[in-house]
């Protein structure tokens, strides 16, 4: 399995940090108050490892948004929030009452899609800017899940062929901290394209 060098990891973290920074300012525009997002930590792992991270203690049920991106590399991108955190986002951002996941109406689900969409567009456009490439995205889909199968549902996942770039990030809204993950599912070819772009970027910066 391909491993990230420390330099690659730092550079990706920096680029995604620009992305989540942009996402935070767009989210602030939506809610009319300051939204802050922490610098993400990045791990490269196999899909089953990503699943076990998500299905750890805090993730009984989760809310996830997925968008497909294509271009210089292809990826399915998915912000995933545990049930309680997703409800917290809806409560804080859409002003919804205390609800359970089952009670969320389509409007709150659309609101979750929009939040995920904002985060992903910002991250992917930061990558596209830094690498000077074009990426095209699909419309976001939102769904809830309580089992492993749902995370990569509908995606061609081959454990020998697929990797997950796993970002952990904290969002602060109205002084509340909401923890979430962003998954980028890539096949080996797309990963090597991504790393190729990353190495080119590092060279241009005189860092490698």
């Amino acid at each position, binding site marked *: 399995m391909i491993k990230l060098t420390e330099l690659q990891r730092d550079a990706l973290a920096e680029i995604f940090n620009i992305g989540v920074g942009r996402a935070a300012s*767009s989210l602030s*525009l*939506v*809610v009319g108050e300051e939204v802050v997002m922490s610098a993400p930590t990045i791990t490269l792992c196999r899909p089953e490892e990503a699943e076990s991270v998500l299905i750890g203690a805090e993730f009984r049920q989760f809310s996830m948004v997925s*968008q497909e991106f294509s271009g210089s590399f292809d990826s399915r991108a998915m912000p995933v929030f545990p049930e309680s955190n997703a409800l917290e986002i*809806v409560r804080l*951002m*859409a002003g*919804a*009452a205390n609800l359970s996941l089952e009670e969320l*109406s*389509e*409007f*709150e689900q*659309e*609101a979750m*899609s*929009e*939040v995920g*969409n*904002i985060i992903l*567009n910002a991250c*992917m*456009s930061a990558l*596209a800017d830094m690498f000077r490439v*074009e*990426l*095209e*995205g*699909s*419309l*976001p889909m939102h769904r809830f899940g309580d089992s492993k199968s749902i995370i990569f549902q509908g995606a061609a996942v081959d454990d020998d062929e697929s990797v997950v770039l796993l970002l952990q990030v904290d969002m602060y809204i109205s002084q509340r901290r909401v923890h979430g993950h962003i998954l980028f599912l890539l096949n080996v070819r797309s990963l090597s394209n991504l790393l190729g772009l990353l190495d080119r970027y590092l060279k241009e910066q005189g860092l490698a």
Partner: protein
Amino acid sequence: MSGAALMAGQLAAFADAFSLGVVTLDADQHVVIWNRWMEECAGLKRDDVLGRPLAELFPDIAGTRLAEAIDFAIRRRMPAILSPALNRSLLRLYKDDDDRRHDRRMRHLIHIVHLRDPAQAGACLLQISDVTAAVNRERLLRQQAENLRVATQMDALTGVFNRRHFDVLLGQEFRKAQASGAPLGVVQLDIDEYGRFSTFYGQAAAERCLLDVANALKDSVPDGGIVGRYGDDQFAIVLSGLDEDAVSEFAENLRLRIVAMAIPHEGAKSGRFLSVSVGAAVMESPGQEIDVNALVSSSDIALFQARNEGRNAAILFSMAEGNFRNCA
């Protein structure tokens, strides 16, 4: 007619068939396609809008997430969804003239996607769905659910919890106390000679008096305290985290507060003003082998004792020592 113009004409005719708003913009955000739905809901004819910048048609969108999302779709090929829950109605779209006169804007859901063929169709497509009815229905359902919740949990006259819900909350507090080891107290009170009060002053005054007492109780309980109507003129209170001394002080202050309200009670034998009898009990160390019924019965016994001692009294039954004491 050129092939491209023919294609654009077909696309426009196709867009007219949709019962949602279809708008496409070129790379400079000038309108390329504006379907019939948009003509009707925006009140702007196609011939008047084609080739004009969207921001000129809807000045309200400047600096908003919608403007940002359109720019992103065109320049960055990133699609966007603008949900009604997170975005107010930015576009001046109205279902009919009456709504337009009263500026009752349609609630909308907007999907924005990049288009690959700017020459013919434009650089980005906006699909605008009218979700006003669904948003209103959702609001109504939520309100009805809330009304039902209130109706099944609250006492209609006094606004405190009804007995059924009070018992549920008491059970929850009892389990929390057992888990945390914090003390839990129950205080019961009834209005002295309420029957005489009702006979003397009439039903309306009696109900007014129940409401005044309930309000005084709500006002007296510390944060986290729970007040319920337990019977006709009987109320109960759950107090978490207070020991026997603190509950005893609370019970006595409550009695004094009701007397201090100076509600005339001319028919009473116990005094000129309305008074209450109060009984209290505290589960001090929740580890002990008692259940919630034992706690409630103990406060019940204390209330009985308070009535026996001539009313207008507050008595605590100590569960640990098995004896009564006057609250102070």
